[in-house]
């Protein structure tokens, strides 16, 4: 019990879970395990329907994590370029930064706590929108095209194994 309390009250844990990248990754990994398992356990559908849905789910979660890893960090490095589109930040010099280094230096000079909160929030908002585009728009389209070749490959392998065992 005290271990759980220590974990839940730990400031380092709170800092870690505040990052939207960490939130998406941990939730995605758990979904990759939970959803296909429960889909296969659902007895209201036929085996073919369950297999299709579970494979699609597993592929989707795995690909979305890979795509997220590959794309989110380069995107996050460049979100500062879009800060100028927020009218709330127009008085802040940070929006004029042209490189990430310049942005970080200008960010250090901001003393207004409210402005710092808004800059952090704007970055998080753009990160959420980028995550949405990667996870909900791009990845499902790729997975839809990949699910049948992979299912066919899996069923071919399964049949080969059965034949080998019989032989």
């Amino acid at each position, binding site marked *: *019990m005290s271990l759980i*309390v220590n*974990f*839940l*009250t*730990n*400031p380092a*844990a*709170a800092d870690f*879970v*505040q990052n*939207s990248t960490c*939130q*998406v990754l*941990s*939730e995605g990994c*758990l*979904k990759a*395990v*939970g*959803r296909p*398992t*429960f*889909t296969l*356990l*659902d007895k*209201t*559908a*036929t085996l*073919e*329907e369950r297999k*299709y*849905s579970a494979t*699609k789910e597993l592929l*989707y979660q795995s690909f979305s994590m890979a795509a997220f890893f590959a794309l989110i960090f380069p995107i996050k490095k460049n979100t500062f370029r879009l800060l100028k589109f*927020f*009218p*709330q930040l127009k008085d802040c010099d940070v929006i004029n930064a042209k490189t990430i280094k310049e942005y970080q230096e200008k960010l250090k000079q901001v003393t207004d706590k*409210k402005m*710092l*909160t*808004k*800059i*952090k*929030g*704007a970055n*998080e*908002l753009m990160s*959420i929108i980028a*995550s*949405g585009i990667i*996870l*909900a*728009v791009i990845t*499902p*389209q790729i*997975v*839809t095209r990949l*699910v*049948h070749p992979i299912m066919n490959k899996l069923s071919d392998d399964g049949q080969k194994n059965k034949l080998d065992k019989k032989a």
Partner: protein
Amino acid sequence: MKNLNEAVDKIITRLGTSNDSEICTAALAAFKLIFIPFATMSDKKSTKEQKNYALTRDFLTEGVALLGYIGITRVVKNNLSAPICAKYYKDKAFGLLKENKLDINSEDYKILSNIDKVAIKNHAMNEFLEEGAKKYTKNQEQYIKKLEGIVAKFPILQNPKDLYLNTKKTISHVSVCLLALTLIPYITNKLIYVLSKVKSQDNKPAVLNKASTQTTLKPYTMTQYMDKTRMGVLNVFNR
């Protein structure tokens, strides 16, 4: 345009102050609720049954996720954070007493081991309220001052406001993870079961009606009747 600016201002201030897990995950669930079923529909190689099942499942899962992340996570974090903070102070007070190396007196120990949960919650949440709207009773304010005094004496202890807010953030994430792993797919399975039951009940009268209309529209010829039942054949011969 002014309203939009105000809304964006509120959103970025909220995300900058406390970017709880449920905000990000609920926003993504809303995105997925629209785009994943759309992608499933565009799959031309799957059978109609596979597509229908996957579509229903995608839609229900993301819908349940959206509601669960907003509703359940909020309830869990609002109700569990203060008791966990109380447990934290109680454990630490007991630890200090057990180690016997710090000068914890009986009054401090009493305060730490009987935490006023409502006072801690109100004190932490006052940060987000304007001056006039702050929630406090005089007793709670005095209690928090005493607690902060004890915390200042023992650097091992966390400030009540920071402790409450940190705990809330972590609980929010843990709740999202548990929902994603078990509760959301479980609820989806139950909903699909209910839907299949409703669908099978709807189909029963439809089948009967179809059969009756076929009989009235296309009456059997004698040969068809003979083919259909043995009794029919026997009856014909008996005649």
